Every structure is written in structure tokens, then in C-alpha cells.
């Protein structure tokens, strides 16, 4: 049985540092780091305008859905995807085999700038995630901490 992956306060601060620097340089609105199952690992930027959890689930699906398309032209997968809107756009790039970075941006910047800075940001995020602790992080709960009452009530 593997331990639960854990983001300590320091891990989150380190990730925020990388993502904040990226957003500033790229002049984007929001960036979210997710695993390929759609779970949010870290997020930075203006989160008031959208539900990040839903963006993550859909982006993971979108990224995976194009894998077969990539395969048809002899690629293992596309490293990056770009969805262009009228005013707001989404750029997604692969961090590593398990992780994707999503960037939402508007009219203040261009896809070229976002793409340029996202490459180094993804590298830095990847390095931080590799060093994440699994277990032994001080948080534990046992069966008696879990209520016997229904988790969800009808």
C-alpha cells in the first residue's frame, strides 16, 4: 500500500513561487497544475471567475482525448494544446508523465508569450513535484477519526 502524496505548506509555497513568477512574466490570468486523473495539485492566479476543479477534470479529459490523434501522426502524445476563444483562451502543456499545467489567459497577452514562459515553468514545477514527500509528513488519522454517520446526507 502506498502512502498518500502530500503537499506540505513549503511545497505549496515553492509551487506558488514558480507559478506566480510565470503568470507575471506571461501576463496570464490563472495557472493550474493537475495530475492526469484530473486532480488539482496547485493553482495560482484569479480563481474567482471559474471552478478550478471542473476546469481540471475537463482539461485532463481534453489532453487524454488527443492522445490517439497524436498517435495517428506518429507522436506518443501532444506536448501542448491550445484552445482559442474570442477573448479568453486556454493553453495546456505536459509537465511530466503524470502532470499537466493549464494556463488561462485573455487579451493582455499572446499565446506565444504564454507558450514561451510555460516551458521553463513546467520544468521547474516538474522538479518540485519530483521532490514531493510521500508520507512521514506529520498528518495522520485513524479509523476513530472517521465518523460512523453517513458522509453524505440525502
Amino acid at each position: 500500500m502506498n502512502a498518500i502524496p502530500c503537499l506540505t505548506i513549503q511545497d505549496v509555497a515553492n509551487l506558488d513561487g514558480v507559478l506566480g513568477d510565470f503568470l507575471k512574466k506571461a501576463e496570464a490570468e490563472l495557472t493550474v497544475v493537475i495530475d492526469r486523473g484530473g486532480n488539482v495539485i496547485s493553482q495560482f492566479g484569479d480563481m474567482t471567475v471559474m471552478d478550478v476543479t471542473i476546469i481540471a477534470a475537463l482539461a485532463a479529459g481534453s489532453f487524454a482525448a488527443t492522445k490517439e490523434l497524436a498517435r495517428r501522426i506518429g507522436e506518443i502524445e501532444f506536448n501542448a494544446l491550445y484552445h482559442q476563444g474570442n477573448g479568453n483562451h486556454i493553453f495546456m502543456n505536459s509537465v511530466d508523465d503524470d502532470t499537466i499545467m493549464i494556463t488561462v489567459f485573455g487579451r493582455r497577452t499572446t499565446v506565444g508569450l504564454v507558450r514561451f514562459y510555460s516551458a521553463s515553468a513546467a520544468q521547474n514545477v516538474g522538479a518540485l513535484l519530483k521532490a514531493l514527500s510521500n508520507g512521514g509528513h506529520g498528518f495522520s488519522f485513524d479509523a476513530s477519526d472517521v465518523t460512523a454517520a453517513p458522509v453524505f446526507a440525502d
Partner: protein
Amino acid sequence: MSIINYASREIQFKIVYYGPALCGKTTNLGYIHKRINPENRGDLVSLATAADRTLFFDFLPLNAVVIKGFVTKFQLYTVPGQVIYNATRQLVLRSVDGVIFVADSQWEKMEENVESFKNLEDNLAKQNISIDEIPYVLQYNKRDLENIAPVNYLEYVLNNRKKRVQRVEGVSSTGQNVFASLNAVSQILLHKFSKQSDMPKTASSPVALPVEPSMPRKEGAAV
């Protein structure tokens, strides 16, 4: 894959509703979305065809109990049941923490139930997960219809294993036992992860799944 986040004080879990086409997976999610307090849920996202068949997946994020100051967040997904969409099912199963297998109780659906369950085992195996390791419950759905197989028969074809799992008889169209199924798998999940939390990376031991958790209530409340 569950993740503990100290900064936001959250623990995330992913639960997938699996089963043959038209067995009621999306109906389960629709009922939960309708009944749960809007403060504790996000939008129900449904990627369906014009005929309301699930094309990609349905998705519903929920906030649940607080454990030691950490909010548990459950992300509910359904898979498309149609046989041809196996690649999509594999994608949705990625990083799964728990499964609710929804079986259609009608006699003519037995073969599809068995095929779908086998497909679940195969797709989990592709992620190096054994069905015996993952928390899951069986929901025998559509118990209100006339041409249904008895529960004993469903148990024989779907739960005839060394270690039997919890089963729930449901009618997802009316909501009967929809929450019972979700609560059953959530409790098993939380108990499993209570054993895993703070465990060193190298530790390994077989997973034991409590079927009827009955621990005293300490912290947290139903939402």
C-alpha cells in the same frame, strides 16, 4: 489518486461510477446533484450526446466531512457504458480511489453486467490495480422493474468472490439507496486511507477493506 494539501487543508478522492450502458450511472449523479446542499457541491458537468448518452464522462465535485481540520473533497465521475468507448473508460479510471459498480438488475442485462465487470477488472489491471485492492461497492439498480433477477442471482454472478463486497439494492430514478451506495464506498475509502495516512513511502502491506465501518463519531458531520 488522493492528495493531501496542507496549504488548502484538503484531501481529494476520486470515485468512479462504472457499469454497462443505460444502467443508471448518470441518473445516480443527477440525483446526488439535485439533493445535496449547493454549498457543498460544484456544477454537474455532463459530456453527453444529443440523445443524452454519456459520450465522455459526467463529473460532480463534492465537499464532505472534515477530518482533523482537513476537508475531504470527493470527485464523482461516470464512465460511458457503451462497449466501444473503452479508451474513455480507461482515461476516467486513471488515479481512481473508489468505484461504485452499478449493475442493471433486468434479466436481459446480465451478460452486459458481467462483461462490464470484467472490463472494469481489466482496465484496473492496466493501471496495476487489482479489483481486490480498490474500495468498491455493488449497486443492484432498477429494483422497481418487473423483469429483474433476484438479488441472490446477482450476488452469484457479480459478488461470487473470495472476499465479498458490500451491495446495495437501488432505484436510481427515485433516488432509493443512491446515497447509501455513495456513503458505503466513501466510508470504506476513508477507513482505507486512515490506515495509509502518514505511512512511509516504502511501507507495503495488503489492504483490508472494512465492509461495515462502525466507529464512533468524533469530528465532522454529514453534509
